[in-house]
């Protein structure tokens, strides 16, 4: 458990440090109440709120990423035991990766990595 204690302490210390900075800011800022301003729009009043249904054009990439990323679940435990299990584990994993990589190459040919 002591490993977790160290992590918890680190979190605590970091948060305390940030809180200290906030306190220092409060003491030294020329005013404490936040200025509520319109967002910067080249000198204009923003015509619309920026928070909107933002079209992230790279969304096809996210799908490929998620498929490939699930593989990482297996990758770390595999890394620990591969030396012990020998050649078969290497082959199995790289066949797996090869299949996924083929998918990635296909996606590339389909133009999934271009968006703008």
């Amino acid at each position, binding site marked *: 458990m002591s490993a977790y204690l160290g992590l918890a302490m680190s979190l605590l210390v970091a948060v305390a440090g940030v809180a200290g900075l906030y306190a220092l800011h409060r003491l030294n800022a*020329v005013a404490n109440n936040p200025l509520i301003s319109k967002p910067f729009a080249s000198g204009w009043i923003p015509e*619309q709120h920026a928070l909107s249904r933002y*079209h992230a*054009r790279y969304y096809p990439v996210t799908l490929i990423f998620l498929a490939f990323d699930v593989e990482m679940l297996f990758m770390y435990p595999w890394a620990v035991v591969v030396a012990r299990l020998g050649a078969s584990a290497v082959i199995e994993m790289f066949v797996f990766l090869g299949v996924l990589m083929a998918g990635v190459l296909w996606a590339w040919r389909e133009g999934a990595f271009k968006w*703008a």
Partner: protein
Amino acid sequence: MGLNGVLARAAVTRCHVFLAEALDGAAPRMAVERELARRGWVEALSPADADILCVCGEVPGGQADAIHRLWDQLPGPRARVSVEQTDDAGARLDGCVAELLDTAGQRAQEAERWVQPDDDDSDAGGMDHSGMDHSQMDHSQMDDGQMDDGQMDHGQMDHGQMDMPMPGGIPLAGEGTDRDGLNLDVLKVPLGPYLPLWPAGLVLHCELQGDVVFGSAIDFPFGAPETGPAPGPDGRASVIHHLDLALRLLRLAGAAASATRTRMIRDSALDGAALDQCRTELQSELARIRKNGLLRRTLRGIGHIPDGSGLPGIEGTDVWDRLVGMFETAAAGTAAATGTTAAAHTTGPRGAGDPARKLPDLVRGQELSVVRLIVASFDLAPAARTVGVTG
């Protein structure tokens, strides 16, 4: 006032300055930039980052509100200065330092400021009755009418939430069909006039889908640009002007090291260094840029102007060509000034036609950063046409 005084004194060694370039602001802006570099100060990219709002040049009548709005966005401690002459930039900035150091005065100033005073929320009331149907949002309508529309008739009324108060008096983004066949929001974002690294006096009213501009219209709030063949500034002024353009493009492309060196060449030209010296330096810088494969990859192929587009001189060029052209024109300027005969290059950004006219076509369907690069690759600012350094 122990700690606060110490902090204040440390803070003013590195003030951040937001530069708002207005009419004929290029020369004062360059003077201020040179002064910032000398002091180790920083050019702010947005008002939120700035301590000092520096208006360069003359703000045309009826345009003061925009400056006022920017001023209100500075978080404070803040100071405001207006520079119209090139020679008093340093003194003006020193005045700002004194203002920023006056903690008591700044506190008093901030205590009076809660929210922005000038923006009334009256627009929000109008929104509630302007519910427009989706059918009127078709594309042609958008191109012809929507951009001009200060009253925002196409607001977010599609979902029947008519009686929602608009937060902050600003309407929500409206829907629009996009090129992927999705019905997502279209954001109307004006770029310019007071945007860092942007041609002064140009406004590009963009419609954004995500970060892609798919419709835009241009406007010149400081007055229409001169059209037709404009005689380029010659000699030293041409060198300075073209290096300034190149520097802006380099900064937008993220090539900070090249931009710094280019700025130093420009500043030494401003300071009256021998043009032969400038030519040697800028040619070695151009050689370095030509070798920069990553930069070439960033700029190659974007903003390509097809042949027959009525822009003689820059047809068939892309942003990379035009960047190289800026350096070559600057080099030609040094040659002309020193009497050396060198053919003036025609690939310079200043063509006979007016590239601003073509901008909406060129930036259509481009990602925002590419749009910025394309805009910066032209010599657009009407104010820049009268730039000149005397002597």
